[in-house]
């Protein structure tokens, strides 16, 4: 009798613990796996579809424009951001500089309301000329992320700071966390 009571008590405790765990799992908020720069493009919606942005390609090789097209969605997850090609204060270009350790950079200006007034991205072919096309697209997709206002993240995401990590992760398009970051802005 006493053994049964102990066993029943143990079962009850286990059930309570499992119920608590389930409740915790159901109510816990997911960690934000993205970071924001704090700037955005004015005149775009803050939620829902879509921020339609224009990128001007300057001396930009064929195929790299996929870096911008990839931002619309991935694996069925939308970003609320569409990039279109055209005349713009947002530009994408290529450069060649061995004096720095970056293979891509985004240089931007913004006004007092934290709205972008320009955002210029470069692929540094000093490094990127030795990359696969996928890694080159990965670098410029990363820069496109900066151009919409995303900061660096961690793990196997597009916004991780470095190309070796993206390459070893096999990441060259926006991942769910990156797209959620874009949705948090637009």
């Amino acid at each position, binding site marked *: 009798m006493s053994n049964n009571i102990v066993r029943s008590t143990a079962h009850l405790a286990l059930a309570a613990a499992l119920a608590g765990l389930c409740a915790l799992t159901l109510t816990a908020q997911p960690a934000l796996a993205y970071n924001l*720069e704090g700037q955005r493009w004015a005149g775009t919606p803050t939620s829902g579809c879509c921020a339609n942005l224009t990128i001007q390609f300057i001396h930009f090789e064929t195929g790299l424009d996929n870096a911008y097209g990839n931002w619309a969605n991935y694996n069925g997850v939308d970003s609320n951001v569409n990039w279109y090609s055209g005349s713009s204060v947002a530009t994408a*270009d*290529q*450069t060649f*500089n*061995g*004096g*720095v*350790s*970056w*293979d*891509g*950079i*985004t*240089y*931007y*200006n913004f006004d007092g309301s934290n709205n972008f007034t320009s955002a*210029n991205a*470069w692929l*540094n072919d000093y*490094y*990127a000329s030795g990359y696969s096309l996928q890694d080159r697209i990965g*670098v410029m997709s*990363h*820069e496109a*992320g*900066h151009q919409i206002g*995303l*900061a*660096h993240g*961690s793990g196997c995401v597009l916004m991780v*700071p*470095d*190309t*070796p*990590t993206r390459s070893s992760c096999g990441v060259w398009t926006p991942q769910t966390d990156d797209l959620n970051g874009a949705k948090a802005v637009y």
Partner: protein
Amino acid sequence: MGASWAEYHRSMAALKQHADFGVVGEVSVIAAAAKPDAGPVYQMVTVKVDQVVWTGNSSHPVPATVTFEQTGGTFQNVTYIVDDDPLFKVGEKVVVFFKEYSPGLYRVSGGPTGRFGLANGVVNAVVPDAIQVPSGTNVAGLLKL
């Protein structure tokens, strides 16, 4: 500014593999920033070498001063900073690992992961989640990580 790093060292072993030499020094000169057509604002920074603390791959003597490019700076009254890579300051004591990428031309290996602050003999990482530097580590300790 936001960058994608081609070199981003997460261990001293990786840093030593890619750098040519490491120095303790002081930032002595920062030239006025410039803006090229095909690239962001940059400034040229000079470090006066107090001590060469590591030579691994250098085929040339380490110069008494090392001048290199840092992306960012103040241009037309606007200060630009790469998110992970704070601007050097004149008078700042630093530990920097350089790569001689062309004869007589140097870059900081790994950008912010190849430079450290130095205060009262204690080394501080610029990017805490790259090369992990325990609190209180001195230069000799850094080289052993």
